[in-house]
């Protein structure tokens, strides 16, 4: 008798992810047809943050670890890339892996300390580490300090300036996003992912079953940091500028909101949440320069009156179709 599939929560839904991928693939075409030329760079930037939000969802949604310092990885990835480009070493095949490696190291070292704590202490210590990166970036006198660093150009690919083309860069970003999304989904459904999720819900039980929860979380934290570092690489290239603000705690807060907006733990929801958040920001800031005065209460209402974000609504909608519910 073949056992039925596990709880839907363990199976991040692939349908919405595929749907989003298709829609995003068509954006440049739509932009050309409608003449809205700003759609492509806008969506590129949103996808970059969606990638970062996805990385956060791995540790926050699946792992249950509220990291208030994920913007640090974006900053590290961006600055590694920026510095390399500025110094004339701006080749993607070199910059990209190096950015991710530096992030992995940072995640490993800070994770060793942070993951020994829990609850609010964990939140604060991740915040502290990201503040260290923020201030470290500010102290980089040679690379602009607080004003940031304008990059002479984007990274080359095999010596060619492929990334300079808006459309090429868009599809590269989309590719990175989809690859990471499906990779993370696979990881979540793997044995490793199951232990990570189990530890979120009942840590002592997982330890009693023989799993080294600390090591598992550390690994997840490093993977997450690397993906966020990738988004940093992309961001540096996209804006052709790096600044300490990339690692600010407000950015970390934004990322948390994107994850919650889409539905904690749903993975594709982090992407959707990033789109909802940044599009809303785009629309509101077009209306008034004081858009935060509207945005702030919106966040508050959202927290007070919804439970589980977009993903939960979609999951509930699917419940009738027998796909189970998280």
């Amino acid at each position, binding site marked *: *008798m073949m*056992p*039925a*599939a*596990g*709880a839907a*929560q*363990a*199976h991040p839904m692939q349908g919405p992810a595929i749907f989003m991928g298709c829609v995003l693939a068509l954006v440049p075409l739509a932009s050309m047809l409608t003449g809205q030329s700003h759609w492509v760079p806008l969506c590129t930037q949103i996808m970059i943050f969606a990638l970062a939000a996805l990385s956060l969802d791995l540790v926050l949604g699946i792992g249950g670890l509220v990291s208030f310092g994920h913007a640090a990885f974006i900053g590290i990835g961006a600055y590694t890339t920026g510095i390399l480009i500025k110094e004339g070493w701006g080749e993607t095949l070199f910059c990209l892996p190096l950015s991710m490696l530096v992030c992995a190291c940072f995640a490993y070292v800070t994770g060793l300390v942070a993951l020994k704590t829990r609850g609010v202490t964990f939140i604060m210590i991740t915040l502290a580490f990201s503040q260290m990166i923020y201030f470290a970036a500010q102290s980089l006198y040679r690379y602009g300090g607080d004003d940031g660093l304008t990059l002479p150009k984007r990274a080359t690919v095999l010596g060619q300036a492929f990334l300079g083309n808006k459309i090429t860069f868009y599809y590269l970003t989309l590719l990175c996003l989809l690859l990471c999304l499906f990779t993370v989904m*696979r*990881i979540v*459904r*793997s*044995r*490793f*992912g*199951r*232990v990570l*999720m*189990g530890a979120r*819900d*009942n840590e*002592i*039980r*997982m*330890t*009693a*079953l*023989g*799993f*080294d*929860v600390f090591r*598992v979380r550390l*690994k997840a934290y490093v993977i997450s940091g690397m993906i966020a570092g990738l988004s940093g690489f992309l961001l540096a290239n996209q804006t052709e500028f790096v600044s300490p603000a990339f690692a600010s705690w407000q950015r970390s807060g934004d990322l948390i909101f994107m994850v919650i907006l889409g539905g904690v733990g749903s993975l594709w929801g982090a992407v959707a949440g990033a789109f909802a958040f940044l599009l809303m920001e785009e629309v509101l800031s077009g209306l008034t320069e004081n858009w935060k005065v509207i945005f702030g209460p919106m966040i508050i209402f959202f927290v007070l009156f919804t439970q589980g974000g977009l993903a939960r609504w979609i999951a509930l909608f699917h419940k009738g179709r027998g796909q189970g519910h998280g």
Partner: protein
Amino acid sequence: MVDPILSVRDLQKHYGAICVTNHVSLDVMPGEIHAVIGPNGAGKTTLIHQITGHLAPDGGSLVYDGQNITHLPMQRRARMGLVRTFQITSIVGSLTVLDNVALAVQSISQDPLNLWANAYQDKALNDQALVYLDQVGLSERHSLEARHLSHGEKRALEIAMALALKPKLLLLDEPMAGMGHDESLRLLSLFQQFKGQIAMLLVEHDMDAVFTLADRVSVLVDGEMIACATPALVRQDPRVRAAYLGDGDV
């Protein structure tokens, strides 16, 4: 002369001035059912915590299966076959019954932390898990989310998870607590089945269960081991009667 599977020597634990484990020593022989009884607050659960690695003792030693495990972390002990169930049932509520047991099977499998293959559709893990679920009578409920089980069923699930870890020594912290009559009987017969194969250290208040099952009984009062003998002898021990059995039922 067979070596004990677990040897607790001179274990001590204090919280400030209060001594909760006062130079406790005990042995569990392989395949034996060894019960630990005592009034509330005697320190029975604390003892279990120290044996499993949840708490670090302040002194004394623990030798399991020939190895000194006194400072070994909990997860290492579990994978060596030193497995416990909890006084307050502890399962992963958001996963299905089957997945809970599959997790245990996964833990002692070849590649427990594989990053790629779908764990939920792993036939090897699932088939093995079903075997254990069958033993505790939960195979009908395998696709249910574990949080929806009744109290007794959750206990049975915990036992299935413990069995899936192929234990040499099972530490059971009040397994009968809150169980209905039928469920208790089923659990008792299950334990009888394993007698001789799996050693069990059983903390219990249910005296019927204790005196039916146990090969030996240790009595813990105020952190101190005051007796350790067969059930019949313990029942008659005047110190034990005074401290524990005397006021209650036997």
